[in-house]
């Protein structure tokens, strides 16, 4: 059952200060309303994974790793590889992350990242078939949240796409119905570079890339994923509150502009390597 979340209380003073600054078009950490925090991407952080990336967005730190295997395809897609996204809110990252079965937050985070990658066709799953109906590549993306200062969604999409962009797949030789792993490998080709933009709504104002205090003080957040061709592939409102249709349309417009900028920064190393 989904239960009303018990948000850590942020002090009244802090909240008032947030709102006062917003009214002047400013934010607590000195950013403007539509400015992202500093983003750093380190590719290939985990050597034992076929692909990985460590992403820091301000103080939010996320490690994404891709493990590759061979699996039986799903019955309805016999010629397609398998892509599975899982997110772990690691307890060492925050006092609000607790050990135990996956929380609804981690499930919805993983599902949103999955939609952003799957719907944008960042990975061409039909290119991941080895023997139709029998053997296909399986890509497991595991997201490890290592430090939590808000906006897990945007950082997770960036980490996942960067990890996929560094992924090397082992080659297999096919002999009849059997397959044999070879020593060679090849690079996973990315077909798109999606970025997610998350906005926190505080009263009648909204900001992009909220830090944790802004998230706690917000009424709700809206995440929007934009593809390289400026079309959208995933949207989700999280939290209560009401979004006016007009604000929603403004967000779409804004996301196209902000998405271009963020994409350039987020995937500069991948594009350079190509």
């Amino acid at each position, binding site marked *: *059952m*989904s*239960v*009303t979340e*018990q948000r850590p209380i942020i002090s009244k003073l802090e909240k008032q200060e947030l709102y006062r600054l917003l009214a002047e078009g400013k934010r607590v950490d000195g950013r403007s309303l539509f400015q992202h925090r500093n983003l750093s991407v380190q590719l290939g952080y985990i050597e034992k994974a076929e692909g990985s990336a460590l992403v820091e967005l301000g103080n939010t730190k996320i490690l994404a790793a891709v493990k590759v295997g061979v699996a039986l395809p799903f019955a*309805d*897609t*016999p*010629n397609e590889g398998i892509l599975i996204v899982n997110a772990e809110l690691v307890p060492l990252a925050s006092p609000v992350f607790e050990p135990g079965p996956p929380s*609804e937050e981690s*499930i*919805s985070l*993983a*599902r949103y990242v999955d*939609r952003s990658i799957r*719907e*944008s066709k960042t990975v061409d799953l039909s290119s991941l078939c080895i023997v139709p109906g029998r053997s296909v590549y399986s890509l497991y993306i595991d997201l490890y949240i290592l430090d939590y200062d808000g906006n897990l969604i945007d950082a997770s999409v960036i980490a996942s796409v960067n990890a996929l962009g560094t992924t090397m797949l082992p080659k297999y030789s096919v002999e009849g119905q059997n397959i044999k792993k070879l020593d060679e490998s090849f690079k996973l080709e990315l077909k798109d570079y999606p970025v997610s933009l998350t906005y926190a709504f505080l009263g009648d104002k909204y900001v992009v890339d909220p830090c944790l205090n802004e998230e706690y003080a917000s009424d*709700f957040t*809206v995440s929007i994923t934009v*593809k390289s061709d*400026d*079309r*959208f*592939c*995933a*949207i*989700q*409102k*999280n*939290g*209560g*509150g*009401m*979004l*006016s*249709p007009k604000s*929603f*349309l403004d967000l*779409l*417009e804004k996301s*196209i502009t902000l998405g271009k900028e963020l994409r350039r920064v987020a995937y500069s190393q991948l594009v350079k390597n190509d």
Partner: protein
Amino acid sequence: MGEKISLFKEDGRRTDGRAPDELRPIKIKVGVLSNAQGSAYIEQGKNKILAAVYGPKEALPKHISLPDRCILRCRYHMAPFSTPERKSPAPSRREIELSMVIRNALEPLVMTSLFPRTVIDIFIEVLQADGGTRCAGLTAAVLALADAGIPLRGLTAACAVGKAEGKVIVDLNDIEDKYGEADMPIAYNPTLDGITLIQMDGIMSKEEIEQALSLAITATQKIHKMQVDALKERFSLSRREV
């Protein structure tokens, strides 16, 4: 998805004969269960969904309660026989996410500060699924809350919009949901002009989303009217019983 499935017939109508902006037939009944404080049943196309509300009641264990408001608990669940392949009754990741987005859509409607330290349980049980179950379930859940006499800021109706074969369509059925290009469930409150639930998967341009949103607003206004009618019917009935 090997074989090509056509989502439009030659006359431009959809597989079930509807126009692109046409809703499926909807039947709503309020007050259908005897034990729940409030309940509602909805049929939308082949969807058959029950919603029930228990509460406000004391929130136990005590640590889950909040001192200044009631908390909401929501469970969206699909019956094992609701889909072509049997669905395991254990909650899937999808059901956990939908329970959350439905609760998020209900939070701004319920006047929670009137019932501090209590809990309201909302159960949505999908008996038969045919695309758009979260929306139909939410439409019914709002009525179950109203039926339970819980003060609400308004009614919210929900409907999915999306895109199939390049055309923007409203109220996607199961096939359109599976083989179409995009699905965007929306819950909208026409009196407060607010979206309480929005999700999307699939690919749409800004212009297509704008068009889809305006279709969703028209569609939810129609469903909202049906919600009001269903409530009126419920209460005129109880008056006669007295």
